[in-house]
């Protein structure tokens, strides 16, 4: 093959990808982690500094909410989470992402604490394992420890009602099936 044909070849490959890209929607951002086991982490609890890892929750469905006091849309979501936690027993783990303990505590004091457990991740190490794209993000994990759903961006009443609650109801059904 003539070497002068190489640029044309590279260009053809590029065009092929661009053409396929045109048919796809980049706004849809499903996490590749869905259907995979929840990534492990070992992080200190915000108040007690005791280590916590997701394996301690094995057997129970739980929600992982990733938040930070510097994040504007977390504030908007937070009120909703506080209301949700009052009426629902599901475990919510708050992962305080790239934040300082003082600011995190001040925030929870001011806005209320919806979390069963809050862990701190000041360097954002766990965030990488969980493929965090931007704060806030919320993962829903079932009793087997499998990630079932991910919310990118703040939770809204609509998403809560139409996506989160039906999923939690499904978990309950699965729990009954597992017992039988």
């Amino acid at each position, binding site marked *: 093959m003539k070497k*002068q044909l190489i640029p*044309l070849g590279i260009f053809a490959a*590029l*065009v092929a990808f661009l053409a396929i*890209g*045109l048919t796809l929607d*980049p706004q849809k951002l499903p996490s*590749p982690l869905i259907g995979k086991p929840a990534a492990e982490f070992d992080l200190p609890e915000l108040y007690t500094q005791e280590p916590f890892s997701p394996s301690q929750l094995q057997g129970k469905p739980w929600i992982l909410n990733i938040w930070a006091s510097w994040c*504007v849309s977390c504030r908007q979501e937070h009120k909703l989470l506080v209301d949700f936690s009052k009426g629902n027993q599901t475990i919510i783990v708050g992962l305080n992402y790239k934040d300082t303990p003082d*600011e995190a505590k001040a925030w929870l004091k001011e806005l209320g604490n919806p979390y069963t457990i809050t862990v701190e991740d000041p360097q954002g190490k766990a965030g990488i394992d969980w493929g965090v794209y931007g704060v806030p993000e919320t993962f829903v994990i079932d009793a087997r420890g499998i990630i079932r759903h991910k919310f990118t961006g703040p939770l809204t009443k609509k998403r809560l009602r139409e996506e989160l609650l039906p999923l939690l109801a499904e978990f309950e059904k699965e729990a009954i099936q597992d017992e039988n």
Partner: protein
Amino acid sequence: MIPEIGHFSLIVALSFAFVLATLPLIGVYKNNPAFIRLAKPAAFGQFAFMAFSFACLIYAFTVNDFSVKYVAANSNTQLPMIFKVSATWGAHEGSLLLWALILALWTLAAGFFSQSLPENLRATLLSILGMVSIGFTFFILLTSNPFERLMEIPQEGRSLNPLLQDIGLAIHPPMLYVGYVGMAVAFAFAVAVLLRGEFKMAWADWARRFTVVAWAFLTLGIALGSWWAYYELGWGGWWFWDPVENASLLPWIIATALIHSLGVTAKRGIFQSWTILLAILAFALSLLGTFLVRSGVLTSVHAFTSDPSRGVFILVFLVIVVGVSLWIYSIKAHEITKQKRFTFISKESFLLLNNVILVAMMATVLLGTIYPLILDALGLAKLSVGAPYFNTVMLPLTIPLAIMMGLGFFSQWIEDKPKRLLEKLWLPLFASLLVAFLVPLLLLPEFSGLAVLGLFMSSWIAFTALFWLLKGNHAKLVKPSMQNLGSSLAHIGFAVTLTGITITSLYSIEKDVRLDLGERYQINEYEFEFKGVSQKEVDNYLASEGLIVVYQNGTELTRLYPEKRMYLSQTMPMTEAGIDAQLSRDLFVALGERLTDTAWAVRLQYKPFVRWIWLGSILMALGGLIAITQRRHAKVKVSQAPKAKSDNSNPAKTSGQGVAQA
């Protein structure tokens, strides 16, 4: 009526583009001088009607003609006049029209400032530019007509995106487009040369001048965009490796390589095929950038309206323009290539190596930009590639680039000796090492290996450029030519930008704090006192204006007024940072959320040397423009490159400048 005239005028411009794209080219092949001579008037007609069409659109904005859909969507009566005018290119349709206008202007310039090219080559080149223009004008008329009317005329327009109501952004797109579209000239030149099957050295010099002007504007355009993002987006970053930013950086990198490659071709009559490939590549990347931005295949912070049908059009256009030119390249490239001897240690080698590094940089950025798209297309994953990737891969490429730059300045054509280079370069080397170690040790808050590295690279480039300017390869001081002055200045500009990047990245301090009325927060020797927030009403927005008094070592230094603006026609609040700028550091204050009646979240930043990033860009652009003022037919001195000269087919035309320069 005026919008219809504008629309019609655009169609007339398209007709001229058709004349330009066909008749002169037919003339070249049928040897018909009358047809060949049509090229210039056709280029002029195309420009005149395109300009008139654009003027009609501006007029529609200034008189608030909301019966025009594009005006209604992007302007309103409360918009200040200057932003009404700049709103003309504030969104998709108008910015494409501006693009087409600038292309017509470049075409005109290429037609009238090309005495050094043979008439046939010029006619072919203009025809190719005409073809590009046909594609763009069709794109506007078929998918993005800015003159489209509305059936129901609204009372009030929707207004321009407030982010764009800013003087920096009013001039950013025209600058960028002049740069982007200017690459079309080098591209048309490359294809014309391929078709002709002959590449004379003097022509390379002509193409270099056009490329340098386009490159200078592109440099300024990118810097303006970066500066705008810094003060307008409120989080104090100056580069985000966002797809749209990358889209402007890609052609810049290749244009930089192209300028140097054209220099070698003009001087030594080699690298022809490589030069031609770079010229095609630079314009291909401009088009690719347009595709990425306008088609919506990638998510970006730049929320342009995107539309898949536009994406299809640009992709087809890209395939035709680049595909055909690369195909011609594959057939004809070997005809124009000349081989001449040069050794590994020579100016040719160093310039070639830097060219390869620049292409590698381009490939790296391109890969990072479209990697999400490739994975998505293969159905593997949806993800984004962020700053950590780009920063990690660009650093190791920048190091050899910087080293070669210094070597390139002082090395001789054809063959050089390491010993001679060392004799010439020990002083800049020593000076650079001194700066690289002493500055972090004595002046910077902490010693960091990366700071040493960054400062070494910048001072190495700056010192070699300066020494070379003052002495060249002579023993005594010499009077520099404009070409050398410009070239040296541009490289020093690059060093200045590199210094800014190094120090800002390593030593910036960023604090998000809660400040109550009268509360103070300290960063280094600066204390920020929060004096509360007041409301004010301006033309077309309401603002919460904070007052922060800054003290330096206890005495008042300045007052900063960061704002949060609520534009009347929009619901999203906008952040307007308060900045105190000095050459050695910026203090940057942005208002966050209101927390209580008196307390606010405030973002405080100390950004050392951040100005240098943009200052360096200005020097680069200025250097480029100074370099091309050098006249070509200057006296020729013969001393160092006799071989190069004897190889020239026409030495009087080609070696316009003194001897010591690249």
